[in-house]
């Protein structure tokens, strides 16, 4: 309402009558063509950037710096979702406008941009952050100014904020099902855990180790960490050769990934021949672009989404994505999770009948999405998603073939009892 008053005052007296006529005519037309939409004053009581026709949201990812490599897909997915929602008439009859900010792979910049989006732009929701470090940096900002963040990346768990909806998997959703599968289908008895040296691989391997040793009674024969950006894996490959594990369980990230798989293949360990079983929780279709399909063929990845998923939702999603961003686009797990963000927010807003953050939050648990490319998802009380765990086998062409999926949705459990 406040915004309407302002425009009326800004108009010169002579034009006001004419403006009034126009508005009258417009409202008559609207009344006949469009379903009545709730007045702005009703759906926005906290002074967010909502007008009669538009609602403003933010996209906050790195488009420059090291992380741009990974975050590019998420930005594309979020923009695509927003455009699709607008094409269907928007949210509560309002078109979504987005403001994109660049976190520049720098965590303080993320926090500062988040503050700008919430305080200055007064956005109704933010889709963004990618690394755990950037999420931790913006978290206090979202809690202080009561914003809503939709966070797309699979991550280590151990977090639950009233101001964040986590659309990726927390650690147990990626790890438990995949290790069970390795033990049952591959008859794995011994595991070699390796990863880059920061919180996500270390937490993931901790959960994996407890599951392997205590729940399944199997053996971990080695655990190894590398500084981010490590490029020489020959010594580790020798170590693996000597320990002869049934399974390499890998969570190496970034440029190191490329080095690791290339050197593994060059060392004569060919995953496609089944020399050893390798399961990764850090390689999606995106990463294979850099690694090269011929170098990683035969590796298994534990994700909730693969571009090759065979269902009508995904077919439509992949088609739309390629139409919007080019025929050569690839879509990884996180890209799909980012795509869910705007849709989940739309559902929550419509269920709440309001853009107010508190009402959207209250309406979020229990939100279902039957149109998700990964299939059906549902928001849990703890703000994470119920989703299936899937295992894909990497193919030479850079895609995965799905070899296993859990029968039921896995419950998200960010604070897994017995695994900490």
């Amino acid at each position, binding site marked *: 309402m406040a915004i309407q008053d302002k425009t009326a005052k800004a108009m010169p007296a002579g034009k006001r009558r004419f403006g009034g006529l126009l508005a009258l005519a417009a409202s008559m037309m609207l009344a006949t063509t469009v379903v009545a939409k709730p007045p702005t004053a009703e759906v926005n009581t906290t002074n967010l950037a909502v007008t009669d026709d538009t609602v403003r949201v933010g996209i906050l990812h790195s488009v420059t710096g090291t992380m741009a490599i990974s975050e590019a897909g998420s930005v594309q997915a979020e923009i695509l979702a927003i455009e699709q929602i607008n094409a269907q008439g928007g949210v509560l009859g309002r078109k979504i406008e987005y403001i994109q900010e660049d976190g520049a792979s720098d965590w303080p910049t993320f926090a500062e941009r988040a503050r700008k989006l919430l305080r200055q732009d007064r956005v109704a929701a933010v889709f963004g952050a990618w690394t755990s470090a950037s999420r931790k940096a913006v978290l206090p900002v979202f809690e202080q100014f009561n914003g809503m963040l939709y966070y797309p990346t699979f991550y280590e768990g151990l977090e639950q904020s009233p101001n964040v909806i986590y659309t990726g998997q927390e650690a147990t959703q990626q790890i438990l099902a995949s290790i069970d599968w390795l033990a049952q289908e591959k008859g794995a008895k011994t595991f070699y855990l390796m990863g880059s040296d920061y919180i996500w691989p270390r937490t993931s391997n901790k959960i994996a180790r407890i599951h392997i040793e205590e729940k399944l009674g199997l053996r971990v024969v080695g655990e190894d960490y590398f500084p981010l950006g490590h*490029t020489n894996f020959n010594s580790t490959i020798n170590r693996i050769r000597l320990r002869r594990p049934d399974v390499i369980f890998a969570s190496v990230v970034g*440029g190191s990934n490329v080095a690791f798989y290339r050197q593994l*293949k060059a060392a004569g360990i060919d995953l496609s021949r089944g020399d050893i079983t390798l399961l990764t929780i850090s390689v999606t279709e995106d990463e294979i672009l850099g690694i090269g399909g011929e170098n990683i063929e035969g590796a298994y990845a534990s994700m909730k989404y693969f571009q090759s998923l065979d269902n009508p939702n995904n077919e439509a999603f992949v088609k739309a994505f390629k139409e919007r961003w080019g025929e050569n686009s690839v879509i990884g797990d996180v890209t799909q999770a980012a795509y869910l963000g705007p849709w989940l927010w739309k559902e929550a807003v419509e269920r709440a009948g309001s853009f107010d953050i508190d009402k959207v939050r209250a309406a979020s648990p229990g939100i279902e999405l039957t149109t998700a490319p990964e299939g059906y998802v549902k928001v849990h009380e703890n703000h994470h998603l119920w989703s299936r765990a899937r295992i894909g086998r990497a193919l030479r062409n850079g895609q995965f073939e799905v070899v296993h999926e859990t029968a039921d949705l896995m419950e998200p459990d960010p604070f897994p009892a017995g695994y900490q």
Partner: protein
Amino acid sequence: MFSEYSATELGSILAMQGFAGLILFAVFVLMALGLAIIFGQMGVINMAHGEFMILGAYVTYLTSNLFANHFPDLFGSYFFFAMAFAFIATALLGALVEWGMIRFLYHRPLDTLLATWGLSLILQQTYRSLFGAREVGVVIPDWLMGSYRITDFIEIPINGIFVMILAIVVTFIVYLLMFRSSWGRQVRAVVQNRPMAGAVGINTARVDRLTFALGCGIAGVAGSAFTMIGSTGPTSGQLYIVDTFLVVVFGGAASLLGTVASAFTISQSQSALEFFIGGSMAKVLTLMFVVIILMFRPQGLFTLKVRR
């Protein structure tokens, strides 16, 4: 630690680890030679060294695409052309940078540090705009990707052997250029006494430009070779820069022999430690070891004796 392995296994592992260390040594030498020439001979700290390497990698990527599309029959040997192109492209860019920026900043080492760091950011963003933020996959000819099986247990990666041979060849060429050519004599004269070298008729500006271009060109060749073992993306150069500086500083800034010796020491200790205690701790211990040695020998392992 060893009790669980048989004697043959231990022997094989020793051999494999020896090779792993040698491969790392060759990688370090290739990385550091270009920087050592620029830093040692000209006193310029080139923070953009990694980005010059990645330019070489991108040139390799373009060359592989060119051969795949137009000369598929020659694809197996494209790598040699790629390395030549990489050298030419990075040397040209190096000469341009020297002409446009570095030559105004001699005698101001801290300013060159800042300026070349800025240059590295500019180059990164340029790569990102030209080739996209994602890493590109450089397809390596099959004969370079396999391994050579000596026994059941010992397998030597062919790309590792390739990198080793390349490192030897490049080092030898640099040696010839620096110590057996008249141009090398000019370079060394300029390093030892710039005003006097100028006074006897050496064109010091030209020597500087060629030296800088040569250093960058070698970085390009290294980057080209590293597409076999590492990633090619806008910021991949950052992966190498720390190790490169470590090798050069530890070796003694003005000595090429020092660079080789330091690369050998660091690579062998790193590789052996990695095998026993894992990647992260190996890095920590290696750095500690280097820091302690530098505390006692701040000038590095080898120094050039010059009368000042």
